[in-house]
């Protein structure tokens, strides 16, 4: 899984498209979460365009890796990435959160092929990923299981029940990635309910812990590669990310966890995402 410079360029450009389409779909829906989807755009892009074994034309392919999104509320970024990866037409992103849509406000497995599990209520994704990892081991299959978690849901007791079991069973076929953006609905995580020392907590539960910059494709891909090479232990990658990444007035600000855009904000956010915060000349306003 060597990452050539041209692939990095491709991933960066794809992540920019994913960010733009994510925010456009949420603006069009009139509601939905925004800070988390923006900060996870690079990891989702790396997953669907470089890391995962998957087949968008055959979403139930037995040989696929499993990607479990636990904090379902950031699904707009998963939808946008999946659309670009070929699971469904990009045009369909306009139906997000609308009546009859396959793109439910929180992801529903039966609604959209390629979604591995229904999620939304926090704290249950790691358990489901652990269940899949156990099942794959029982069948002596080598598919990888990736569990994408938020940092806020590290406050749920169930997350640690699952962590304890994965440590006990030495599930080396599971890699969890925590979106460490330090925000949650009511404020900064360390004010609401301190999670630190997060690395030491997972180590105490017999996990191997890696920490990365969640916006650096080299680091994302290297960490996943390292995780694959760790035996007898589950691996968690703590991905430090910038909430609201890509829009200057949203970055690092917890109120954007699920804030609705005012028309001027929407226009400005899309302008910044289109121009990479003014780094490139916009072809149209």
């Amino acid at each position, binding site marked *: 899984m060597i990452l050539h410079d041209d692939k990095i360029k491709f991933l960066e450009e794809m992540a920019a498209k994913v960010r733009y389409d994510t925010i456009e779909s949420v603006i069009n829906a009139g509601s939905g979460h925004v800070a988390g989807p923006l900060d996870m755009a690079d990891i989702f892009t790396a997953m669907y365009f470089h890391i995962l074994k998957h087949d968008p034309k055959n979403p139930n392919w037995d040989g696929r890796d*499993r990607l479990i999104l636990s904090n379902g509320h950031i699904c707009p970024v998963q939808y946008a990435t999946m659309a670009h990866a070929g699971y469904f037409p990009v045009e369909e992103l306009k139906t997000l959160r609308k009546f009859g849509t396959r793109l439910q406000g929180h992801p*529903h*497995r*039966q609604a959209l092929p390629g979604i*591995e*599990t*229904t*999620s*939304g*209520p926090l*704290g*249950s994704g790691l*358990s*489901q*990923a*652990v*269940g*899949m*990892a*156990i*099942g*794959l081991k*029982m*069948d002596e299959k080598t598919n990888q299981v990736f569990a994408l978690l938020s940092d806020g849901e590290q406050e749920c*007791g*169930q997350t640690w*029940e*699952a962590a*304890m*079991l994965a440590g006990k*069973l030495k599930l080396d076929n599971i890699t969890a990635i925590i979106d460490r953006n330090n925000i949650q609905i009511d404020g900064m995580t360390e004010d609401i309910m301190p999670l630190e020392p997060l690395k030491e907590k997972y180590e105490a539960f017999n996990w191997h812990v890696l920490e990365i910059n969640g916006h650096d494709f080299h680091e994302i891909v290297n960490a996943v590669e390292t995780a694959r090479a760790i035996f007898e232990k589950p691996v968690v990658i703590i991905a430090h990310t910038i909430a609201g990444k890509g829009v200057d007035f949203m970055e690092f600000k917890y109120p954007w966890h699920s804030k609705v855009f005012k028309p001027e904000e929407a226009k400005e956010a899309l302008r910044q995402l289109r121009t990479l915060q003014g780094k490139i000349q916009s072809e149209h306003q």
Partner: protein
Amino acid sequence: MPINKKSKLVENIFDAGKIEQKPTRDGYGLGLLQAGDENPNIVALCADLIESTRTEAFAKKYPARFVEMGVAEQNMASVAAGLSAIGKIPYITSYAMFSPGRNWEQIRTTICYNERNVKIIGSHTGVSVGPDGATHQAIEDIAITRPIANMTVIAPCDMHEGQKAAYAVSKIDGPCYIRYAREKTPVFTTEYSPFEIGKAEVFFESDKTPDVAIIACGPLVHNALLAAEELEKKGIAVRVINNHTIKPMDEKMIIKSAKDAGAVVTVEEHQIAGGMGSAVAEVLAKNHPVPIEFIGVQNHFGESGNPNELLEHFGMGVAHIKDAVKKVLKRKK
């Protein structure tokens, strides 16, 4: 003898001294093993209670298909959902207070809404759990499982039916909840007694057109039969129905019995609010309203004691059923 011959019940059904006594949970252990012998995809998960939930035999015979979860029922429900995603058929077991009690939301979202093929086995239901007291006596489990879409809910009446239910759910592709009991109760059906999910069985039918239909589930079906026998001696014609499947309910049988008898008494070891009787009332209110009396726990918590004194104390004894029948007959027009 008004016992329905087709139901193939034991001979000495009214002989309290001689009838064999075994807990319904024993049936679970046998049914799980039977299903597991037949289908290698069946796996079992347990939250630190393998002996008392009767998961032990399976765990010993198939250690590679058993996962000890520790005291973590929420994790157990969602891990089972994950196993189901890989094609396994997980049976998850604990006391009903903790599963489906403590882990209700995980069952709703990650199993039922997610359409995962998981069997939820709740042991220790009812006040007959006895000395452990109210914290361990699940009397709300039907009420919390019944409204969840996609869920099947079953309350077996004895050990044999417990085995058949545990086996039968392995053939259904979807979430099922089965409620079992801790205490020894009369084994009054046989291995030949019919059992089909969603099909209620007439166990007792007087020669005359019934004056009342007693619709019961769980081990209290036996109390309903004892009450029926005594009522018949007093000239009251009775039909007793073993309504083991609370969802999907055998509406045809319930409506027919209400039409035939014109009065209904429901019997269950569960809160009256939201229980099997409530489900019967929903069917009858819509299709054929008749007077109904409800036997069950009346908005109380349980307490410590021996099973029979608790059943009497909370109004679920044979005499209470007879009284309810007399009361409902007075309300008949």
